[in-house]
């Protein structure tokens, strides 16, 4: 079977597959995978990654190592876009409200994972090899790597599910700052491991030098992000044209991430810093910027996650590696669980945070693999390879399980679907949701005097006029009624039949709210009758009259719905 695939892959590489065809296959395949998994109620990210695994190193090898290297910039851009969006969601008010919570949980979950993984790996390797120094060094390095949490896959699930609430805020805050802690622990561990192994390796610098470079990496990133955000906000201040805002914003983000790579700054952190400053100090213009960037991002994310999957090679795993990987996974999950719970308890976080946060901290990706590669360069030979292979194996597992766990957690915490805009609501709702369904119906022979009564006693601006058999005859709007004011003396003589209008268009209950609303706009009409496709009623092809849609009703529905969701999000804590 594998031979067959290798054969095909071999031929494929001989074919002159150009870059665009290549990107097309990755993007299209990833999108199909995402959609398939979404159908199975699994986050789309998992689908992208699995397509990557199939096309990449573990499977068909269609995406070769050289290609992965060539496409490195895609990952850089994707990570900066993710960082930018996360930064944009960190509002100062929210940080003030939850700052203590963030810090307590962050340190406890990261440190506990570090300690538990370090301890377990040390014990296991000591038993298996009897080499004390190697066991301790491996324990420390893997422990440090285990503390990192990947923002990308986690936040992708949050955005896909439009979550909002204390759990979402905490997750965003933690994944935003988690990298800094992981880098710190890693620098500390590497320098101890260096001493333990007596390594003369090239990267084995002193702890103090490493700390200094860390300070540069983290501090420089924050400053650079702030600076670029300041320039961008000045530039887009007077812009009204969306396309131009998008071009400037993307340009600024790429400029920043390119600079970060060149200056050796933490690129995700720089992008987060930029997102944070722009959303907090130029809030009005930036909300437009963020929604534009988010609309632009999905294809880049698909490429990114497919590439993440394609890098993983699951065939490199030996029994020894599997054992360490198993211990790593167990220790990390357990450590994060205990640490997050303890942090939540200490900082008196809302109940749902303590209960479900551990599920949201499983993902690992870029940073973990990046650190393992650094470890591979610092510790050449078997030790370095071991770290890389273990982290690749565990990353594979948590990349697949992590997003699923996040989805489970936000569902359970009741935060799914609370972060919704009017635009989302239009897309999710049907005509049945937005129509007035139980408004009074006016009999076709009702005189104007009684129609006036109906209008004055109810809060709607148009009513259905029905025949005795319940079928819709027409609609009377406030305008039609107004026309009768010039014939007040005829108000007992004029009937609903005389003043109603026949609707020029209609829709069915199952039609989407978006279509119904577009119909109103396109035909520039005030209202739209809605019918339920009920067999046996109406030779006119229409079903049973179900309700009326008008713009005012739509607005009412949306504002009520959004208020309700806001209320629910606030009630969560």
């Amino acid at each position, binding site marked *: 079977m594998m031979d067959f695939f290798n054969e095909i892959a071999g031929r494929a590489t001989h074919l002159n597959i150009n870059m665009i065809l290549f990107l097309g296959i990755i993007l299209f395949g990833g999108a199909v995978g995402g959609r398939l998994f979404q159908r199975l109620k699994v986050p789309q990210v998992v689908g992208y990654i699995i397509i990557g695994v199939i096309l990449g190193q573990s499977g068909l090898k269609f995406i070769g190592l050289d290609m992965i290297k060539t496409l490195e910039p895609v990952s850089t851009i994707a990570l900066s876009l993710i960082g930018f969006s996360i930064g944009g969601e960190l509002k100062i008010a929210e940080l003030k409200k939850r700052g203590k919570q963030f810090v307590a949980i962050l340190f406890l979950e990261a440190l506990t994972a570090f300690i538990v993984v370090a301890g377990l790996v040390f014990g296991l390797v000591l038993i298996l090899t009897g080499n004390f120094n190697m066991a301790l060094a491996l324990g420390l390095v893997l422990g440090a790597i285990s503390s990192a949490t990947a923002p990308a896959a986690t936040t992708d699930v949050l955005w896909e599910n439009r979550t909002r609430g204390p759990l979402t805020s905490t997750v965003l805050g933690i994944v935003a700052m988690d990298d800094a802690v992981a880098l710190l622990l890693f620098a500390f561990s590497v320098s101890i491991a260096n001493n333990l192994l007596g390594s003369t390796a090239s990267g084995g610098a002193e702890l103090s030098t490493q700390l200094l470079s860390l300070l540069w990496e983290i501090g420089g990133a924050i400053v650079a992000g702030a600076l670029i955000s300041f320039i961008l906000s000045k530039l887009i201040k007077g812009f009204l044209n969306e396309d131009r805002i998008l071009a400037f914003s993307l340009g600024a983000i790429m400029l920043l991430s390119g600079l970060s790579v060149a200056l050796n700054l933490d690129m995700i952190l720089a992008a987060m810093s930029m997102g944070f400053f722009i959303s907090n100090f130029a809030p009005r213009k930036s909300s437009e910027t963020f929604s534009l960037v988010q609309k632009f991002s999905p294809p880049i994310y698909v490429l990114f996650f497919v590439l993440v999957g394609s890098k993983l090679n699951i065939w490199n795993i030996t029994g020894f590696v599997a054992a360490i990987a198993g211990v790593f996974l167990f220790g990390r999950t357990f450590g994060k669980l205990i640490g997050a719970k303890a942090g939540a308890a200490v900082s008196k976080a809302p109940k749902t945070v303590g209960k479900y946060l551990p599920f949201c901290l499983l993902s690992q990706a870029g940073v973990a693999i990046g650190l393992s590669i650094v470890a591979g360069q610092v510790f050449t030979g078997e030790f370095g390879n071991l770290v890389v292979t273990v982290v690749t194996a565990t990353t594979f597992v948590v990349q697949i399980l992590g997003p699923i766990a996040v989805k489970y957690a936000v569902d359970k915490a009741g935060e799914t679907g609370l972060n919704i805009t009017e635009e989302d609501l239009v897309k999710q709702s049907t005509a049945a949701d937005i129509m007035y369904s139980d408004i009074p119906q006016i009999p*076709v*022979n009702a*005189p104007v005097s009684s129609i006036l009564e109906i209008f004055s006693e109810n809060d709607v601006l148009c009513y259905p006029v029905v025949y005795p058999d319940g079928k819709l005859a027409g609609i009377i709007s406030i305008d*039609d009624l107004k*026309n*009768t004011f*010039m*014939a007040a*003396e*005829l108000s*007992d*003589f*004029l*009937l609903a*039949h*005389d*003043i109603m*209008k*026949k609707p020029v268009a209609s829709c069915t209950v199952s039609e989407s709210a978006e279509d119904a609303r577009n119909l109103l706009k396109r035909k520039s009409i005030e209202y739209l009758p809605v019918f339920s496709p009920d067999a046996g009623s109406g030779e006119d092809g229409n079903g049973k009259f179900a309700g009326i849609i008008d713009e005012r009703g739509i607005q009412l529905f949306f504002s009520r719905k959004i208020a309700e969701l806001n209320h629910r999000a606030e009630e969560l804590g």
Partner: protein
Amino acid sequence: MDLANIIDRERCCVLKETTKTEAIIELVNSLEGFNGPQLNGGPLDIEELRKELFYREQLMSTGLSLGLAVPHVRFRGVKSPLVIAGIQPDGITDYDTLDGSEVNIVIMIIVGENQHKQHIRLLSLIASRLKDNKLKQALLSAGSGEEIYSLLAGSEEAGL
């Protein structure tokens, strides 16, 4: 609103029929072959017009008070208002008016399907104009369609 252009001179008449149904049919039938500027394309569908008028009567009689009836309809066959009138000096007793009186003057109003405002304005105009007793008496003693037309159309100029 210029009643002189709205009322069709040739289709004002002294009615022969003395029951509500027959009187309305007589007026509608007089529109057979009508080709005035009010038409919306082809000739009037007389059958359909009759049906619509009677459906409205079935909902509630169009007999007002003091001998006046205004059968009226919004009809897709016309594009601008069309009014014709019939006088029955002997009275139509079965018209079922608001005050129970018999009907002597039947003014039929046909407006375009979407002429909602004109419809009501015209009804109101005719109802208020025929509150004038002198005009009513003059109409009752009119001997020809021509005379009826002049009285109805001219009453505007007379400031009535």
